[in-house]
């Protein structure tokens, strides 16, 4: 958010000072435009920290959170960057990542697959992410009536003629409950000191002033049953307040809570090609708190037992339930001692004393495999620990 005075924006992607200087002083490079930024969003006058695109994503995510949207499509998803933000929202059930560039999607689609930690830290709500290839202007019934469709920095890449078709497809046919659109604010460009007619990105077909964007939004709302709220991302430096935010956006909200039933959209038409689809690991909801507590009891008893065995050689440990209740991991279940005793009794490994106050845990196998209680391939030495169960396939990380 802090505007910082920066150097030549054309070389702002230089990785370090050396590269920056050498490129700046190289007339060859300055003339051909190999150095052009992905998209100009910082200049000698303004630089955003965190970078503007992150701020933009964060803002859209904020809207999704407020609205608790469960089904979301991201049009113009490109490298699936925004999907990385969306998938961390625990209430989202379905994400469609849509783009027209198949080659790009094919090389990036695996980015949305569950990572190791997604398996460890399972979601409470199911989530499916589907990567679809197709044009915004076509219609795919899977995306009909979603909670939200996002088109982040997409509209300015469309031909002016297509903008109208885009609105028709989005608001007229897809009819999501909400639409979030962002686009550059042309008013802000004065701070980039562009040449006449220069735009922030080579592929931009147009850039809108705040006024033009508002006109577009109003056009939408008169034609379709939506209302809109404007927002901005990337505040200008204080001495240039008049130019407005660097990026502008609008949240459209559908007014009708139910859709008319006459639309042909009811027929399933799956026009978009599914390049990748993946379900995220979900917590097993069928497991009761008692199940988890039982495992916690076994775990803790086992830990205590083994510690005692190692220190004192106790083959059987007696653990008072009152002591177990002092463990935060057990205490959190807020159950009675009697309930713990009952759960322990139902297990295979634990036994409960007759008074119901303590749990017995056995720290060694019932009978050592004869004759040297050794196991598999290793010999046993009298001085060492005696149980050699080998997990052959396990190794250090």
């Amino acid at each position, binding site marked *: 958010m802090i505007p910082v005075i920066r150097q030549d924006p054309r070389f702002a992607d230089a990785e370090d000072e050396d590269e920056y200087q050498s490129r700046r002083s190289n007339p060859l490079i300055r003339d051909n435009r190999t150095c052009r930024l992905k998209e100009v969003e910082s200049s000698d006058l303004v630089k955003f920290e965190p970078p503007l695109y992150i701020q933009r994503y964060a803002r859209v995510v904020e809207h999704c959170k407020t609205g608790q949207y469960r089904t979301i499509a991201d049009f113009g998803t490109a490298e699936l960057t925004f999907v990385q933000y969306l998938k961390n929202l625990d209430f989202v059930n379905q994400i469609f990542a849509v783009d027209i560039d198949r080659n790009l999607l094919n090389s990036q689609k695996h980015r949305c697959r569950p990572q190791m930690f997604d398996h460890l830290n399972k979601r409470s709500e199911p989530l499916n992410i589907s990567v679809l290839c197709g044009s915004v202007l076509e219609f795919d019934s899977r995306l009909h009536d979603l909670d939200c469709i996002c088109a982040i920095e997409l509209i300015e890449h469309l031909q002016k003629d297509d903008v109208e078709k885009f609105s028709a497809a989005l608001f007229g046919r897809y009819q999501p409950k909400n639409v979030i659109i962002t686009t550059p604010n042309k008013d802000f460009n004065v701070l980039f000191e562009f040449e006449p007619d220069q735009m922030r990105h080579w592929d931009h077909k147009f850039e809108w002033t705040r006024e033009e964007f508002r006109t577009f939004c109003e056009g939408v709302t008169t034609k379709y049953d939506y209302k809109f709220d404007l927002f901005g991302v990337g505040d200008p430096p204080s001495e240039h307040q008049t130019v407005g935010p660097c990026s502008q956006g609008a949240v459209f909200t559908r007014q009708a809570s139910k859709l008319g039933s006459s639309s042909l959209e009811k027929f399933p038409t799956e026009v978009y090609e599914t390049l990748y689809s993946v379900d995220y690991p979900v917590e097993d909801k069928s497991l009761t708190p008692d199940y988890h507590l039982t495992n916690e009891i076994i775990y803790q008893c086992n830990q205590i037992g083994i510690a005692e065995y190692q220190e004192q050689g106790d083959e059987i440990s007696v653990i008072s339930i009152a002591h177990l209740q002092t463990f935060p991991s057990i205490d959190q279940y807020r159950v009675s001692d009697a309930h713990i005793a009952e759960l322990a009794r139902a297990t295979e490994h634990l036994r409960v004393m007759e008074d119901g106050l303590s749990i017995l845990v056995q720290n060694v196998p019932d009978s050592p495999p004869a004759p040297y209680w050794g196991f598999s*391939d290793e010999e046993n030495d009298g001085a060492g620990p005696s149980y050699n169960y080998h997990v052959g396939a396990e190794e250090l990380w």
Partner: protein
Amino acid sequence: MASRGRARGRAGRGAPAPGGGSNGGAAAGPVGGGATAAPAPRGRGRGRGAAAVSDTPPTEQLAGMNIQAPAGVRERGNRFATPLFRPENVKDTRGNTGQKIDLLTNYFEINVRDNKPLYQYHVDFNPVVKADSVKLRKALVHRIECLRNRHLFDGMILYCPDRLNETEFVVQKKEGDRVTISMKLTQEVTTSSDQFIQLVNIIFNQIADRHMGLDRIRRDYFNPGKAVVISQHKVELWPGYEFSIRKYSHGVLLGLDVKHKIVRTDTVLSAMNQMVSSGRGGQQENIRRELMGAIVITKYNNKTYRIDDVIFNLSPKDVVQLRSGPISYVDYYKNNYNLTIRDLNQPLLLSIVKTKDPGTGERTEKQIHLVPEVCYMTGLTDAMRSNFRVMQDLAQYTKQDPEKKKRTLEEFRQTVESSTEARDLLQSWGLEVSPAILELDGRKLKPEQILMKNGQPFPCDARKESFDNITRKNFVIQSVDINNDYLIICTSRDVTHSNTFKDTCAKVGPACGINIQANGKVVSINSDRANDFIEAIRSNVTSNTKIVICLVPNDRKDRYDAIKKHCCIEQPIPSQVLVTKNLQPKKAMSVVTKVVLQMNAKLGGELWSINIPMQGVMFVGIDTYHDSGSNKSVGGFVASMNNACTRYFSKTTWQESKQELISQLQTCTREALQQYRKLNNAFPQRVIIFRDGVGDGQLLAVKEIELESIKKALHELPQMPNLVFTVVTKRIQQRFFQKQGNRLNNPGPGSIVDTKVTSDALFDFYLVPQSVGQGTVTPTHYNVLAFETNLQPDHLQQIAFKLCHVYFNWTGTIRVPAVCQYAHKLAFLVGNHLNKDPSPQLANYLYYL
């Protein structure tokens, strides 16, 4: 392209120069190191104007080489190549005795369509794209339509299954600029080259990664979707595969093994809380000790870190200075990962990450602070490992019998087959995985006979894991007559235990022909401190005392170390340490039987033997031990002193850390030879050496340094003995399953495989030494580096098997020849417990058992 960064240096291995390659030949040769040593200046200090060309010369120069030529200053080794190690004088490496058996092995044949070569291109960009912006280079090449994604490209060198018709392509960058990509054919990669094997590996890794839904952890692939949850131990087991493709004598084979990754579902914070609530005192130190060195995986970015310290005076509320300004850890996680840290008072973890700048090769250290709440523990702790219940529950899944294993292997192949994308990919490269796992012939050697007192033979039962039924009922070859000449030290609390011990000794000893009686001297001490034990030893050992027995209340390492140090160095005397919990009534008989045998062996008594129909042979075992703490490693050298393989001479050596290589082997060998002559009145006619603990990458060094120094010692003799030098490897991928009717079983002990999965470049064979009760048996690999003898390969195979029977600490066969296990045991004792050379007075005893 050689994405696995670890360079396994094979000095002197040049790039292969396959005949088909017209351009490749000249640059090939032993230049692997040379090219890396002189990298042209890159990236940095680029002069003005020259920027456009400065990259060209080194890349041009490298292009003539192959994939392992460095594309930066990184070193890239080809770990799939097998250098030629077969002794030149050996033509046929196969044995012939034994009964033929039908085996299956965990390999699939890879069929290469028409032996079609692959094409290697050097890629240039105009305007120049920096060599280290690999991502951009890849993205641009990706846009070339006519490659149809059927290529491998590492940013510098491109491989295609077909020859390209065009070599110039124009693509558009994201920014709209046009870039011309030109390809220059540098060589044809023939299917017989090592490079080809490496490419096939890369292709299969891609398949596993992208088309089989497997996640890569280190070198192996796992399927978390099929995780087995073992909640009561807070672990999950992820099934997976380890695979590699190599060239064997049967052709290109895909070796596949089933693996399980153990993942823990508790966070570091809950592990810390666990340590606190189990309340063993000294909490901060305790936590630090338990966590240091542990590897954790973060919840938010899927990275693993090694914990180097726990910082108790920092908490997530504290502020960290980032490039963008100060921010608290809580806010940082909130902003960047949308993670809420709940416990605001937890300490932080410190991880020191060493990075190497890909451009300059500069190494930097970065300190990273982690919040325990968002880190997961990985792997098993020692505590879990020693917990029988955990191991038992895990073994249920990890130990797969041959039938189950075969099914899992076939599943792999089916998954490949059922993925259209994987099939297409293989198809485009002209590769095909054979539908069934590989069948091969093996031979089963006759079961050995165990020789007991007076050479009485008893046949081993191959179905049993051990032959204790023989040793328990029959007399050992030679008893040392301990009588009452032993000394027991124990705490006053354990006096009853000492009585149990003495009485049981007197009962079980004579039953196996060992003369030990119930009236040894017992000294009780008032504490369990190491010093008191040593003081008691010092003041009570007399010239008559044959062995010291210390009964200790638990297996604390410091006390064990102190006792062993004293008895092996200060006051050399055989010693036996025994944890009293092993003397519980239920176990006492079997434990004491074993201990009595062990004591007899330690004192030089002979327990049992096998028949080796050769005279004047000295077997040598060599192994090394690396201590994680110190920067030295220990080499153990053990040589047999008689034909029955019951007497041994031992010596240890020290070398710089992590060096498997034993540098003082010449001295060791010389001393062993002298000792042999002293005992046998003649030098040995044959020296047969088994070397354990050598990685693939060290073979050459072992051959050139160790083998040579041993040869030097042998040349000093009036007549140079025959020499056989064999490298023994226990951790291998190969598994064999024996077809018996319509069932698959583990092949019995003595099964030999010396075809198909052996290498043409080696003299090698596999031996199944043991019988296992659960799971799949692991064969041992023998790789012969020197074979200067009139023996036949068959003889060596039999010798290896025989030697697996005579390890006195286990009444059964072990996985390696006994001399190796003795050497291992010796190196371990010296490296882990003594940290100093033991007294030479003990050199002729098996005191290290």
